[in-house]
Every structure is written in C-alpha cells, then in structure tokens.
C-alpha cells in the first residue's frame, strides 16, 4: 500500500508531469499563495505581534497603523495577529473536512464500484439522498443538533458533501474493474479487500487528490459561512468567519475588522482553486467536478 502510494508520488514528481505543471503559471501562483498561508499558520506564534485573545478596551477600534497593521477590533484585539492565527484554523478545518469527506466517500465508492448489484444500488441511493439536500441548509440543520462549535461544523459540512467522492471513486472503479491486472490478481487468489486496497485505490488517487484540492476551498467557505451566522467557531477563536460576524456590527465605523479576514478567506480559497485547476489538467483532465 505505502509502496504503491510512494510510487504514485514518484510519478507525480516524474519529470514530465512536473514540467507540465510548471507550464501552468496559475498553478504556481496558487502554490506560492498556499505556501504563504501555510507559512503564516506554522509561524503564527513568532510573527504575530500579539496573542489572538489579548483584549485591551483602551485601544479599541483603532484604524490600521504601524503598531496595528490591520487595526484593532471592538475589544481592542489586534486584527493582524488574529488573521494570522486564523490561517491555522482555516487550513486545519479545510484539511479535516476533506479527510472526513474522503473517509466516508472513498470506501463507499470502492464498495459500490467493486461489488455492483445491490450494494451499488444501496450506496447509490444513499448518495442520491445526500445529494438531494442543499448543503448549507442541511449543514445548518445538523449543526443545530450538534450544537455550535468548530468541530461540529466540520462534521456537518463533511457529512453533507462527501457524495462527489463516492461518485468519482465509483466511476473510476467501474472503469478499471475489468482491466487485466485486476483479473490477474483475482486469478492468483487475492482477496477482494486486498484487490480494492492494493490495485483499485491507488488508481483512484489522482481524481481524489484533484477533488480534495477543489473541495478544500468550498469547505472553508462553508465553515466560515456557518461561523458567520453564529453556528460555528466560538469566541475568542480567531476564525475568519467569526471575525466577520463580530466585525459586522462595526462595518461602517471600523471596516478593517471585516475587510482583512474576508480578504484572507478569499486568498486561501483562491490558492486551492488555482492549484486544483492545474492539478486537474495534469492528473485527470477528464474530471469535471468542483
């Protein structure tokens, strides 16, 4: 398994693919932007001039200046520091959502594609059912059950949006199930489980990677939207959506409280979208999701 993945990655870094990737300037810009965000997230403790929850009512709602690059919010917290710490949360949340989505969607897709028949029908029915709900609306309903909180929002968003993974993996599985190497593996008596894991899964990786890159931005947009509505991150978490929600009362008095967090959401989503587009061209030109 690990060997196969590493082979895949080797293939990724294979000279020709990499060259192709280089030709996609946008992909490079996306990669650079993403690296910046990752850098900010990793080094927040060192770069941020203040702690994200340090309140100082005597210097509240100050406009951007040298001391406070992005100004201060209604509690006198440094918006710049909060935005930087926010990168950590946004990336972590995006990653987590995608992991949960893939964790649900990929096995179901494999099973549906591999066994076909009733299993396929059953799984497809569930996928159709989930597909029938508009994501934000169902996520809202789920968060209402689970209660507010970032973890709950991650779960809610993941639960409503794993269906594309199942569909993509199922389609890919169907397309290779009758290939020779699978038939050969069956012939030498490999178990179904090991065939799925060792032969099919690695082949479904490229579309999964592309899909993941393209679903991270929508995961970030959904979770920040839920935080914005007040169902997500709890104060004083420097979640960008929550910052927008808190800054909204002061949008005319202190627009900087809203402008910067939103800008960073955009930049992060943009970095993944640019990267994902490039990856799609490289890895799986026919994929039409996202």
């Amino acid at each position, binding site marked *: 398994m690990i060997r196969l993945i590493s082979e895949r990655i080797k293939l990724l870094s294979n000279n020709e693919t990499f060259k192709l990737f280089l030709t996609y300037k946008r992909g490079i810009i996306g990669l650079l932007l993403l690296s910046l965000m990752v850098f900010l997230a990793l080094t927040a403790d060192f770069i941020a001039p203040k702690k994200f929850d340090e309140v100082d*009512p005597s210097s509240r709602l100050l406009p951007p200046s040298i001391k406070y690059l992005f100004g201060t919010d*209604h509690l006198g917290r440094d918006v710049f520091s909060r935005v930087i710490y926010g990168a950590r949360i946004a990336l972590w949340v995006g990653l987590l959502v995608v992991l949960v989505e893939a964790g649900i969607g990929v096995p179901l897709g494999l099973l549906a594609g591999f066994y076909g028949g009733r299993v396929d029908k059953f799984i497809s029915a569930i996928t159709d059912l989930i597909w029938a709900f508009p994501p934000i609306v169902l996520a809202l309903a789920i968060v209402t059950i689970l209660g507010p909180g970032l973890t709950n929002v991650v779960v809610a968003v993941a639960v409503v949006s794993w269906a594309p993974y199942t569909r993509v993996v199922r389609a890919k599985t169907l397309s290779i199930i009758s290939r020779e190497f699978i038939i050969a593996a069956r012939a030498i008596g490999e178990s179904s489980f090991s065939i799925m894991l060792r032969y099919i899964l690695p082949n479904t990786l490229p579309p999964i990677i592309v899909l993941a890159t393209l679903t991270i931005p929508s995961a970030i947009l959904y979770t920040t939207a839920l935080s914005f509505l007040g169902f997500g991150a709890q*104060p004083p978490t420097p979640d960008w959506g929550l910052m927008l929600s808190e800054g909204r009362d002061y949008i005319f008095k202190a627009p900087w409280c809203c402008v910067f967090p939103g800008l960073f959401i955009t930049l992060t989503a943009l970095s993944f979208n640019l990267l994902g587009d490039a990856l799609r061209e490289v890895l799986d030109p026919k994929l039409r999701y996202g």
Partner: protein
Amino acid sequence: MRVKGISSKLIVAIVILIVIVASVSAYFIYTSQRAQLGAPQLERTLIIAIPEEPEGLDIQQVTWANEVHGLIYQPLVILGPNMSIVPDLAVSWEVSEDGTVIIFHLSKDAKFSNGDPLTAEVIKKSIERYKTISPYAEDFADVERIEVLDEYTVKLILKRPAPYLWAVLVTVYGAPVNANVAEKVGDAEFNRNPVGSGPYKLVEWVRGSHVVLERNEYYKTNIPFVKNKGPNPYIDKVIIRFIPEDLTRIAELEAGRVHIVRGVPLTEVKRLKENPNIQLYETLSPGIHYIMVNVLKEPLNDVRVRKAIMLAINRDEIATVLEGNVVPWYSFLSPTNLCFNKTVEELAEKLYAYNLEKARELLKEAGWVDTDGDGIVDKNGVPLKLTLLSAVDDPALKKAAPLIQAHLAKVGIAIEIKEYTYDYVRSLTREWNFELALRRFSWADPDILIYLVHSEYGNYTYSNPEVDRLLELGRGVVDMTERTKVYSKVQEILLEDLPLIPLFVLKEYTAVNKNVKGLIVLPPYGDLIIHDAWIEKG
C-alpha cells in the same frame, strides 16, 4: 450531434417562463410595498420601527409584549413617572386593610374599540380567561374569586395579600380583553384580530412587515399626567414596522421614513446623540444582566470560587466596550425596581469592587493554585476550566462574554465560551445543564427573584430556606417600605451566596425624530405615551 430544432424552442420557452415568474413576483412585491408605505400623510400618521414582529396580538396568549400590544390594550392602572401607581382604565380603586380585597371602579362610558361596553362583567371574564389561557396564568393564581358588585364595580378577592399582582396589573398583560369577542371568534382568530380598549385599534397586520393601527374613537383614560384623556386628535394612524436589522432601523429614522425607533443598537447611540434632528430618550432597564452560576457543580459549589469570579470581573471595562450604555452593577435589583435600595448596592460595590488580589487569595484559600505554571490554577491536578454560555442574539451579553473570559484568565480561570440563542441558554439553565450562563431579566417588581432563586418557584440550582422564606414573605407585604426591607435582606444573603453574579444594568434608548412633539417615554419599560403627541410637518 446536437439537436437544433427542439433546443431553440425549449430555450425560448424557458426564457419566457423566467420572465413571467419574475414579473409576477415583481408585481406582487411592488403592490405589497405600496400598501406598506401608504399615502404620504406623514403629519397624521405616526410610524414606529421595532425590531421584532409580535408572535401574536392577544395579550393573554403571547409570551412577550411589545409596542403593538401597548397601543391596543389599556391596563386598569399604570406606573406613573415616579414609580407610583396611577389610574388608567379604572377611575379609582380600593385595597382592604389586610390587602386581600381589591375593588376597581370603572367609568360609566368605558368601551372597547369595537364599541362594546367595558363593564365589570367583562373584566371578570377577561381575568378568568387569563387564568386558563395565558402562559403566565400563575400571575393571577392568588385571585380566588372575582365578584361583580355592579355594572361599574369589580371586586377581586385574594387568597392572601399579593402586592406582586400590581406589577402585572400595571403592564399590558393585566389589561382587559374583549373576552366576549374572543369566545365568539375563537382564540386563534382573536390572536390575529384582538379587541382591546387602548388608544389605537388594529386595522391590518401584514406579516413580516408591519401593522396598521387606527385611532380608537371610544378611547377614554384616567391617566393623571396626560392632558388629553380621549382619542388623540392629531394622530389618526399608527404604523408599526418590524425591521429586524439594527442599521436599517436607524437608517430609516435618519431618512425621515420612521418617527420613532425602539431597540436602538448600542453601537449607534453615540452617533445619534450628536444628530440634531433626533432626540434620544434613555430609560434604565428594570432588571439586571448577570451570570447565573450552577451552585451544585464542582468547583462552583465553593462560594469562594464564586466570590473570586465576582471580584475578578472588571465591570468598568465592560462598560467601555459597550460604549457607556450600561451601568456597572453589583447587586440584584436595578434602580428602576420597585424595591431598589441604594445602600444594598453601595454595600455590594464595597464588597466586590474589582480586585484581582483578593480574587487570587480566595482561590488560593479554596485550594486553587497554579502549580504547573500553565497560567491556569489547579487543584489535585485538575485545572480550573469552566464553560460560559453566551447568547448570540443579545448584543450586550455577547460582547461582554470574551471580556469576562479575558478577566477571569487573569486570575487563572480558563473559560470556554459557548454561544447559543438566549432562549436556548435559558432552557439549558432550567435543566441545570450548565456551569456559568449569561442571563438577564426585565421586571420592575422584586417578586421576579422568586423565579430565579427560590428553590421551588424557579427551580434553578440554588436553594436556601431563608431566602425561600423571605421571598414568600415579600410577595405578601403590602407596605412598600417594609417590602423593600424584606428584599434588601434577600439581596444581602444573595451577596454572601452569589448564585447570580450581577454585571450591569442596561440603558435602553428610544430614538425619536424631533418633529414629534409631546411624546412621553415612560420608565421603567419605556412605554410610549402618545396621548398628547403631534407631528409637525416637514
């Protein structure tokens, strides 16, 4: 292969469909919009903007009342400007020596807004209806019997003296409804189309938008401090618009499309004060905003921890963040409460003025010290972490929460904030499923405390037999000075036990366009008295 013939027809069909649906809905909205703004008679029509649409209009079925109910109904008596009870619908009243009999005398020509006579018989029926239908039926539980002495005299016979009953009688909750009409049309219809005896009557209720009220030509009042005791000749119509967005409500006022705005957002007060065209009326809330403590839960069952929390909160800083729109508060009854006692508040402030040193000492005494140097105090290896429930839909509480968190962090108490709606926070505290919760109340009678700290009435976590006894006693004390003494005693005990941690008293604002003259905003609830009001042109 692309199929050309079908596709173009289909596209045309879809486009036509879109256009039809769009124009139909546009027309729908356009017409409903026209109805909403009405003809341009600004000088005869008063327009009030409030944040929330009432859930219903039958005062005996709703759980909260607002300006619409205030204009449709007329209480028997009301609280005058100096917190004394004055007549409104009733001409006069008598209370027996022991406080168990109340007799109201009505005017001979009192009528409901539909012209039905408002007699003693109807008042009896109305109160009886309240006792069966209202979520607050308990209010009249001590009223044993109602007797009709004659057409204009009604007698309430109580099981025991119940001065707290007056707190209900002076609000619209205690106002008579035309119970005969309710009986005829059914409760659901009456909730949509009520009949009261207030200065205005309902003409139209456009859901999600506004209500239109028209002058009640039968109106008659006995309020001593208004000049005009009949229908207001200058204001024919009152439109009450429901505008949930704070900034829109203010924008409408500044644009001159609304005369009066209730629920002025705290962040706009300063700017409105500087606006020469707008008058701000300030009333102090008759309740307090506070932290409710689950006194049964470790480690909050230790009073020293509660005291430490009380001492560690910097209320002045909260007032700064709330832009001066709250008064830092240390005791349990606000200045606009009937039994407010200044010395209790002074005592409380002396005991619990912001003092980090003292707070740390108390924690240490209780065994909470930071042994591992992580900034959080601990005891037997358990760090002191507490959850604070906050309300997304209460701006003052919501903004105070992260500050309180920062304050308590200074003495080594780690707070995790959980935001829910206020209603949900209340239901969690009712189930005892919380540690600390931000709460508020708004009621001018001290009897409200019985629903918060009495072991049975309120059924929250706190229970103290002495407090129970005093609260039960306080309900029945007729003499106000004596009654205040009882509640002062209650407050002193609460200050020792701290099941509630007071934070501040909210200043509530009503913003009014200066061309509205003669308006009275009556404390403590900020009721609008528009009897003598008129609106100047332009």
